[in-house]
């Protein structure tokens, strides 16, 4: 086909009808507090890794809930598991266990 100098771009919007939510299901099966997040952002604010990178636990949580898991491995690999986010969370979300299970899901892909 000829080169047009431009391409048809996929929509940037989150499509909750076509997105794959299996990761979200896997996490909530193993950590009920996964969906208790109210997106206050205190975790990201206190995050040790976030001092060095744009790592954002709040966003990671919501993105998974919306089935947007591209580049997740990259993001989650930045976490130091120090647990400050969990201490600070006003809703008692087990952030460490969530991240732990995201990593588990990613390291044995397909098994969740």
């Amino acid at each position: 086909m000829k080169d047009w100098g431009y391409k048809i771009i996929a929509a940037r919007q989150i499509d909750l009808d076509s997105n794959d939510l299996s990761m979200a299901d896997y996490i909530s099966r193993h950590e009920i507090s996964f969906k208790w997040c109210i997106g206050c952002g205190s975790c990201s604010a206190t995050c040790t890794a976030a001092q060095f990178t744009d790592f954002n636990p709040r966003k990671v949580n919501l993105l998974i809930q919306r089935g947007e898991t591209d580049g997740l491995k990259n993001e989650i690999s930045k976490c130091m598991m120090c647990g400050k986010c969990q201490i600070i969370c006003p809703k008692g979300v087990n952030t460490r266990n969530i991240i732990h299970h995201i990593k588990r899901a990613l390291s044995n892909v397909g098994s969740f």
Partner: protein
Amino acid sequence: MSKTKRIIIIGGGPAGMEAAGAFNHTDYQVTVLEKEKQIGGKLNTWYKLFPNFKSGTEVKEYLEETLKKGKASVLTNSEVVNISSDKNNHQITLKDGKTLTGEAILIATGFQPFEADRKEEYGYKIYDNVITSVDLERLFSSGKPILTSTGKVPERIGFIHCVGSRDKKSGNLYCSRVCCVTGVKQAIEIKQHLPEAKIFNFYMDLRMYGQDFEELYIEAQQKWGVTFIRGRVSEIGQNIDSTLQLKAEDTLLGRPLKMNFDLIVLLVGMVPTAGAEKLGCSASLEFTSGKFFRVMGKPVQTNESNIPGIFLTGTCKEPLSLQETLTDARAASAKLISYLKEMKED
């Protein structure tokens, strides 16, 4: 020995009923005017009330008892069209031309739900599966099953918060206060009917200001698995199978979001009752920007209008929850009594 003073209460809803009841220990002659054919106002529509799911009828019966104690005479089908005040005498004209006079008037004309079809982009009365929170309450009370226009059990249900509230385009800058918790309450009720249903609430803020409201929200989220997405819905479109396509931004992710729903519920806000404005003008009462009756000197004198002898209570002056309305009604009657006590006879 002065003649018994007469109090006219306009509106036989919760505020009117509670206020009338609070005159039980006085010998004033109290008249309640209700434009509908039965008293009780919105309580005739609400199925269950937040935050504790008390049934509307139960509360209505309770208020009817209170009303009885007040020995007030109740006139239904009596819509007030005019108030003319002359010092201590206020004359009221009904639609059918009848007139009443009293030494004091208590306006309790309440609110009506925002007309959702004015929020055009949501397509209420255009898309078959867009309904309002009021429609849903009626559906609950009717005991009929929750079905889509095509008769199928809805699998995905959306709630849109702040419809007609905090919205310049709808002409209402104010917050209607009760919609947030109503949305949470109704989401739970739907889950109780349809445990399989997936429910999404789209909100700008969740204003869980009242006692037990936050707890209810947490219950919805943690026990019933209701999903809350922060973002105001921009538009709804209808798909060929008459399901609905919704567009919003997930503002916590900064990403536009699109999804289909079988049923969408618009959480409509409060606007002053139709005719209240006209009535107020006739009595040269002052109004808020939201066209509610303005009370004098907040935070004190929250029941006094700008006309001596005309008192205001309940949602005719600002959006209030039922609980707040009833408290306010009792406050109003107390104010009213002391007013009549101090009133100079002429």
